[in-house]
């Protein structure tokens, strides 16, 4: 840790690290001048629409496409048999998730359909409207099969097996048994338990999934314009399954209108678009509409958890014992699998605490609903809600304050690095400092006084806490070791241009979260140029270094470190050249604010524009042995720990109208420790957006299915996303504990808000309802459920 007390490479004159700066792409986006996939129009382009299964589980007896083919403007109609020769199926398993299994998945129905909305046949036409007209003229004869929808009975002996070749409906089973759980519960002063229901929901990016596949027969090249988080992963997967040379597949990802983990997976309709482009030799565009998004974008969560916790009389957590079952739809999603979410739940529950005994049994089961896979927060919201509710139950049972029970149970500050009973390794966390700061900024004592006074007037307010850990900066242990070609390393190339500005290309990607801004800040600081002289390019696999893109909160920590090292390397090259030109010693020179300066006095020796001009156009003036090298590339892989954990403390303040069941969100506070803060405003906005995306499913968002597996709310009128009017002010503050795994010291921040909010609001609602003896653990907390809990409906 001590090296961080020395002046860092980042504490330089004209450093931009740690400062709020304007986002270079914001002007373009707010003016409506972004380039999303649907803005791109290529010559001879055709548009896809799909006939999608109306049933959750059925045999496809026959498909009649004659009338669809006859619709004027239709270029082609495709079933699985029409594309089978150009594409191979995929299976969503990874080697390091022991025992995980799934079935082969095809881009179009291959004899059976397994969820409502699964693509069965595709129409390519001159417009999307014509394609939809024709898709209505595809007639499919189905023979209905019994749908498996209830995950709690998916493994029962009389439940049909969805994929007979797998033998049962169990995708993945994980058991942890650490310490002596039975003894801990036997000796406990207090044992608490509850059953939790976590609702299926989905990401709802404003820009839906979108792709254009442009196949050149002449070159054997496929260019993909995609709205995606991982361009290199997509390049690999399309090449692999379309049988193309990976070097001849290019992914171009321009502006992305949100993704949240939705745009990180393999989707049947997008793979079908690739196959059809290869067959037609024409550009093929597919833009998912909102209904298609609801029935095919990965869903998330959908867990039932039974958990109990043991405490000693001092309110110290001794043990947690939990069972989790989660329904993932008919397939484990390729290539990341649908086992990771459960893995995170069992790895992370109780993460902030020092209990030595922990048992978890998690089952991932198949069902005939849309697939479920990684979405912002991956497992964390479940783990945090379960653990933090148990902490509150323990506090209540022991008559202690929930803050004190947390303090008593935190891992001691001097115990780091610390290995949790689930095997997770924490480098260093600041739970105590975060919670102390949180209690201060929210005026906890004042809120408790007000709460008591208001109860006398039949106004029911509640305060809920959540302390949490978050997985960030992943090493290759996340996916790479399991056999997935998903890069955990990332790279950055920075070039000094003749004008004295720099251009940085990076493998991490921009979805609206500000990646390009922080890369620019780091590059400007490391090289020593003004921020407005930095251009950052992302998202084009033929331009940027090979990298993993955006997942597991890695953009700042991994991509940022690569940018820092590339910038430092370029600066060294610049100084070496400047020393030759100026006949000075390199250690007497520095680069600051776009100029070569004397390191001691700061006096300008030469502007970078002059150096660039000499390097690129007047090499004749340089000594014979000097060859300018004004491009530098560096890569970074975090391999010291499997992940670098962040931590945070959240608090939520609500008022429950016990007559109508409406929850009013009054305030929300977060104290977050994401290590080095590169841009305070972006960190705060990531946290706020994450909190909102966690409050949404706790109060509003749910993919509702009938018992037959029909999605009941496929529009934004019926699927309620959190909106500004209901959201509270969210106050964000920081503790900075830089990670020692990198020079930059940054950890991730993209998902922690989502991780903590469901727990905090659940605890706040239950605190508000405490006078009624009501405890609610079935999300979302609708007015209906609250009134029923109160015996008023």
């Amino acid at each position, binding site marked *: 840790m001590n090296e961080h007390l020395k002046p860092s490479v980042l504490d330089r004159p004209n450093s931009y690290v740690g400062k709020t700066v304007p986002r270079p792409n914001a002007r373009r986006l707010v003016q409506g001048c972004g380039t999303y996939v649907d803005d791109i129009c290529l010559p001879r382009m055709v548009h896809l629409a799909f006939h999608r299964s109306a049933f959750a589980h059925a045999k496809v007896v026959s498909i009649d496409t004659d009338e669809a083919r006859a619709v004027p403007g239709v270029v082609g109609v495709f079933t699985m048999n029409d594309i089978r020769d150009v594409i191979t199926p995929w299976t969503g398993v990874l080697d390091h998730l022991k025992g995980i299994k799934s079935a082969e998945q095809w881009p179009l129905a291959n004899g059976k359909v397994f969820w409502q909305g699964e693509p069965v046949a595709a129409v390519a036409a001159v417009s999307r409207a014509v394609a*939809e007209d024709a898709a209505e003229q595809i007639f499919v004869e189905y023979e209905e099969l019994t749908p498996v929808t209830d995950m709690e009975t998916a493994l029962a002996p009389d439940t049909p097996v969805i994929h007979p070749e797998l033998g049962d409906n169990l995708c993945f089973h994980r058991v942890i048994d650490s310490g002596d759980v039975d003894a801990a519960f036997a000796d406990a002063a207090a044992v608490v338990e509850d059953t939790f229901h976590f609702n299926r929901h989905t990401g709802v990016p404003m820009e839906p999934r979108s792709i254009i596949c442009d196949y050149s027969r002449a070159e054997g090249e496929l260019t993909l314009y995609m709205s995606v988080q991982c361009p290199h992963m997509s390049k690999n997967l399309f090449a692999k399954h379309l049988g193309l040379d990976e070097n001849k597949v290019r992914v171009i990802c321009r502006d992305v209108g949100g993704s949240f983990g939705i745009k990180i997976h393999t989707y049947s309709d997008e793979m079908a678009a690739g196959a059809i482009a290869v067959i037609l030799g024409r550009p093929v565009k597919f833009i998912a509409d909102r209904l298609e998004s609801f029935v095919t974008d990965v869903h998330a969560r959908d867990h039932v958890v039974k958990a109990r916790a043991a405490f000693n009389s001092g309110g110290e957590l001794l043990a947690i014992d939990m069972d989790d079952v989660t329904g993932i739809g008919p397939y484990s999603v390729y290539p990341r699998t649908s086992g990771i979410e459960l893995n995170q739940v069992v790895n992370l529950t109780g993460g902030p605490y020092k209990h030595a005994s922990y048992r978890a049994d998690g089952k991932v089961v198949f069902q005939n609903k849309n697939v479920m896979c990684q979405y912002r927060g991956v497992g964390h919201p479940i783990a945090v809600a379960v653990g933090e509710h148990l902490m509150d139950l323990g506090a209540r049972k022991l008559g202690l304050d929930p803050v004190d029970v947390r303090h008593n149970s935190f891992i001691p500050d001097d115990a780091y690095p610390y290995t949790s009973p689930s095997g997770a390794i924490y480098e260093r966390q600041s739970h105590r400092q975060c919670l102390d700061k949180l209690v201060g900024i929210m005026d906890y004592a004042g809120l408790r006084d007000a709460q008591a006074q208001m109860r006398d007037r039949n106004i029911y307010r509640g305060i809920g806490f959540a302390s949490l850990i978050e997985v960030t900066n992943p090493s290759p242990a996340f996916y790479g070791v399991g056999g997935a070609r998903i890069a955990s390393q990332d790279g950055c190339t920075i070039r000094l241009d003749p004008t004295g500005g720099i251009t940085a290309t990076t493998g991490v990607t921009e979805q609206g979260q500000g990646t390009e801004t922080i890369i620019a800040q780091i590059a400007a600081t490391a090289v020593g140029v003004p921020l407005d002289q930095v251009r950052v390019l992302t998202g084009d696999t033929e331009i940027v270094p090979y990298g993993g893109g955006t997942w597991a909160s890695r953009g700042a920590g991994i991509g940022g470190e690569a940018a820092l090292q590339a910038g430092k390397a370029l600066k060294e090259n610049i100084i070496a050249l400047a020393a030759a030109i100026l006949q000075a010693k390199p250690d007497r020179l520095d680069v600051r604010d776009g100029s070569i300066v004397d390191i001691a006095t700061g006096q300008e020796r030469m502007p970078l524009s002059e150096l660039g001009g000499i390097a690129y156009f007047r090499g004749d003036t340089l000594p014979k042995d000097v060859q300018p090298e004004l491009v530098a590339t560096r890569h970074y892989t975090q391999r010291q720990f499997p992940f670098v954990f962040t931590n945070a403390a959240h608090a939520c303040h609500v008022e429950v109208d016990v007559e109508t069941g409406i929850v009013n969100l009054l305030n929300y506070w977060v104290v977050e420790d994401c290590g080095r803060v590169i841009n305070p405003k972006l960190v705060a906005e990531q946290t706020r957006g994450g909190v909102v995306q966690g409050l949404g499913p706790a109060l509003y968002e749910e993919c509702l299915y009938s018992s037959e597996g029909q999605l009941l709310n496929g529009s934004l009128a019926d699927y309620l996303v959190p909106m500004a009017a209901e959201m509270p002010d969210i106050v964000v503050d920081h503790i900075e504990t830089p990670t020692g795994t990198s020079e930059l010291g940054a950890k991730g921040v993209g998902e922690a808000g989502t991780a903590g909010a469901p727990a905090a609001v659940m605890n706040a609602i239950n605190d508000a309802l405490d006078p009624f003896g009501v405890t609610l653990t079935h999300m979302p907390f609708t007015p209906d459920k609250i009134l029923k809990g109160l015996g008023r409906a």
Partner: protein
Amino acid sequence: MKPTAFEYVRAGSLDEVLTVLEERGDEAKVLAGGQSLIPTMNMRFAAPEVLIDISGVTELRGIEVRDDVLRIGAMCRHVEVLNAPEVAEHAPLIAMAMPNIAHAAIRNRGTFGGSLCHADPAAELPACVLALDARLNIDGKSGPRSISARDFFLGTYMTCLADDEVLISVDVPKVMSENVTFFDEVARRRGDYAMAGLASQATVRSGFITDVRLAFFAVGEVAVRAPHAEQALQGILLQDMDADAICSAIADDISPFDDLTTSGAAKLTMMQVLTRRAVESFAKQGAHA
């Protein structure tokens, strides 16, 4: 989500609207603000062959103060009604309802008449015109007619408008000094369709309440009055109100349906809470009168 191809007629006059409606009958749909019709077409739940855009028809626009009534043109945008001082003065119930209708972008295009003709069971305005005993002025090739709000709504998305008729305007009786009004709804988010809502108007004289209209919405197939509860309130001294009796009368009047996320039982509780809040508000308003 693209509609099937359709013809588009931008009508310049009421006569042109009626002519096309007569010629095309149920193949035609009148397009006002399009806030419900266009999504319905995009989802391909509706596929009219011709849309008659009435936004340029001046006979359908404007808000007019007449002797006993306020006349609101069918083509008035929600935002116009929201901002009209005449509405605030003469039809405060409608003014109270307007901010609850969806969001600003929808209120900028959606229309007063369009909402009534769409007859969504969760919409605010059908309940308002029901509570106010408004009259709806209709025209068609067979001639103009006027109909009470009570008779206009037939069911979910169903009204008594014939295929060749169009709603022209709505006559709302002007509020009187002894009237008291209440509007509220319970919605999960601001601007959402309510789980239960109440539009109510009554007369209070010397603390006694008469002529009570309780019009509920989002609880059945169509906005609906609650006759037993109205009767239970009729003529009573507000300060002596027996809330339990009124709540039980509401249960006799209406058995709300379950919707996707709210049970009928929860809706009934919300209706009873809204009614109690209405009567409490009436008592306050009556005391100030």
